């Protein structure tokens, strides 16, 4: 027998019992050749190109699932940040483009298409301003389009003007999608140090340095890590790190295999494997549960940041050994709404926004899927984004904010989206004002990279 009995059963246990799946195979498509002076021609070009490359994406990914017995949770598409090829467009034209992206996504049978984006860490072009203005309307008039805007980077600093525009856009998006618990905000990410090859929607986009087309894969597998930690029992932290690494190694190898096979079937190049641990609302598929299994009474207890740092670091070490194509975010995601353990910790009063912020300093990717009261002011949201961006640019890492000022809701209420977006309890936000600071506008200069204490 070329494999041990236990090895085969371990794989079966991972895929069948412990929720091991590939979180996403995301096809990145460049739209840089789709511009035309006539918006109708532009739309036609976009639609045709996405269908030409992505038409078989879902079908081929399903074939790979059956072949290897590993399910792929999401098949998605990312495109060039829309503001770049279509910089000459007006707000209304951008909305038209969003609609055509939505239509293309529907036609090829995917749930989300990402890249309705702009990169404005240093400053904004007219087109980028128009795109940001259009975001609330685009997200409320489409179902599948996801948007992201990068407002800061270690090299450029933090663009506070862009943050202020984005916090207004978030508020308006929440209002325009109030019928569905402000779901538009769940499709809108504000980044610092955004990466160009991130396969994880909503923050995915196909960066300008990427090839014509590429296939990136995002692994998952908190459930598998959780079981491995539980099985390890009472061991010290070095041994625990070993346990995590061994598990992640296997997950990453499987992820790369699946990604390469989907790329091969599509006849396109394979890009990267993103080794982020991404939770789902399924019971047991939770980062919070891992932290608890590591010994914390609940997420939010003192020690949470340290435990998360160790988990994240172990994941990276193992992933880098397993694959030479590691990229994207590659960390641990801690979205509140998509993780049952996190939801419970918030409801029990054990986890606050401030503790979450501290946790994002040691893991990707930021304050993710956080619901806050609907009357939270734009200035306060701008302050939250600026804090998160500061953590990102000072530590040279990606951070993001996906915050939902749930229209008409107050602390303790729930927003419920179903599916992978899950549900989130509305969290308390400090009401002392940040308006004077964020209202100054301008740009926080790029940070220095020495004397880093």
């Amino acid at each position, binding site marked *: 027998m070329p494999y041990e009995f236990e090895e085969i059963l371990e*794989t079966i246990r991972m895929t069948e019992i412990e929720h091991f799946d590939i979180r996403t195979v995301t096809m990145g498509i460049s739209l840089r050749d789709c511009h035309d002076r006539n918006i109708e021609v532009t739309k036609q070009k976009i639609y045709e190109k996405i269908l030409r490359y992505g038409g078989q994406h879902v079908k081929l990914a399903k074939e790979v699932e059956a072949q290897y017995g590993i399910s792929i949770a999401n098949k998605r598409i990312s495109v060039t940040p829309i503001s770049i090829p279509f910089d000459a467009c007006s707000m209304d034209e951008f909305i038209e483009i969003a609609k055509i992206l939505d239509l293309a996504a529907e036609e090829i049978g995917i749930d989300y298409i990402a890249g309705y984006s702009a990169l404005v860490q240093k400053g904004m072009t007219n087109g980028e301003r128009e795109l940001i203005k259009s975001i609330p309307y685009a997200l409320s008039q489409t179902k599948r389009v996801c948007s992201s805007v990068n407002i800061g980077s270690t090299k450029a600093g933090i663009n506070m003007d862009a943050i202020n525009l984005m916090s207004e856009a978030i508020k308006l998006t929440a209002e325009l999608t109030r019928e569905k618990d402000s779901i538009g905000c769940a499709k809108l990410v504000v980044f610092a140090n955004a990466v160009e090859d991130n396969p994880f929607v909503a923050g995915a986009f196909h960066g300008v340095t990427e090839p014509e087309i590429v296939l990136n894969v995002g692994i998952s597998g908190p459930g598998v890590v959780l079981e491995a930690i539980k099985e390890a029992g009472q061991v010290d932290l070095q041994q625990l790190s070993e346990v995590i690494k061994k598990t992640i190694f296997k997950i990453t190898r499987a992820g790369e*295999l699946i990604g390469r096979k989907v790329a091969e079937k599509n006849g396109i190049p394979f890009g990267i494997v993103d080794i982020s641990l991404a939770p789902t609302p399924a019971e047991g598929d939770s980062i919070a549960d891992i932290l608890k299994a590591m010994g914390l009474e609940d997420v939010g207890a003192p020690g949470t940041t340290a435990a998360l740092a160790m988990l994240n670091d172990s994941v990276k070490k193992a992933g880098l050994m397993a694959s030479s194509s590691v990229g994207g975010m590659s960390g641990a995601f801690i979205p509140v709404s998509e993780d049952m353990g996190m939801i419970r910790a918030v409801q029990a009063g054990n986890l606050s926004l401030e503790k979450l912020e501290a946790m994002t300093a040691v893991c990707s990717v930021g304050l993710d899927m956080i619901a806050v009261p609907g009357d939270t002011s734009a200035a306060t949201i701008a302050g939250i984004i600026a804090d998160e961006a500061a953590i990102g640019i000072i530590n040279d890492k990606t951070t993001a904010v996906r915050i939902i000022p749930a229209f008409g809701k107050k602390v303790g209420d729930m927003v419920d989206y179903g599916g992978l977006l899950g549900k989130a309890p509305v969290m308390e936000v400090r009401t002392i004002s940040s308006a004077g600071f964020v209202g100054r506008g301008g740009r926080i200069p790029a940070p220095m990279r020495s004397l880093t204490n």
Partner: protein
Amino acid sequence: MKFTEDEIRKITFEAINELGDKATPESVKELVRGRVEGLGGDYKFEKGDASSGRVILTSFGLNHPGIVAGVTKALGDAECDIQDLSQKLLGDFFTMIMVIDISSSHKDLKEIQEEMNKVAELMKIKIYLQHEDVFRFMHRI
């Protein structure tokens, strides 16, 4: 001679170019069939690339007479070659793992999986079929 999917795709594109405007699905198929068979290959478009190579079959459930017979009979009917077999009993619980080569089968992996699902239902056991690569990638450096 065996062709990979890429090679067949290349031959197909050549055929399409050669036929130009006159190309129809039938005429392309005919031309490609001629080319492939001329090179001594098997013309079997309906088989995906999954049919090549080895597959690991894992089955488990409560032990009762006839499980091995049922599984092997279905594999035999599908012309699969059983290359290795290992089986364990833990109390009443039965586990069997097989390495099978399905490249000689007239069915592809998906069809064999469907056959096995029927057997699994009949025997009240679980059967999984996965391409060998997933185990090689996960457990071998």
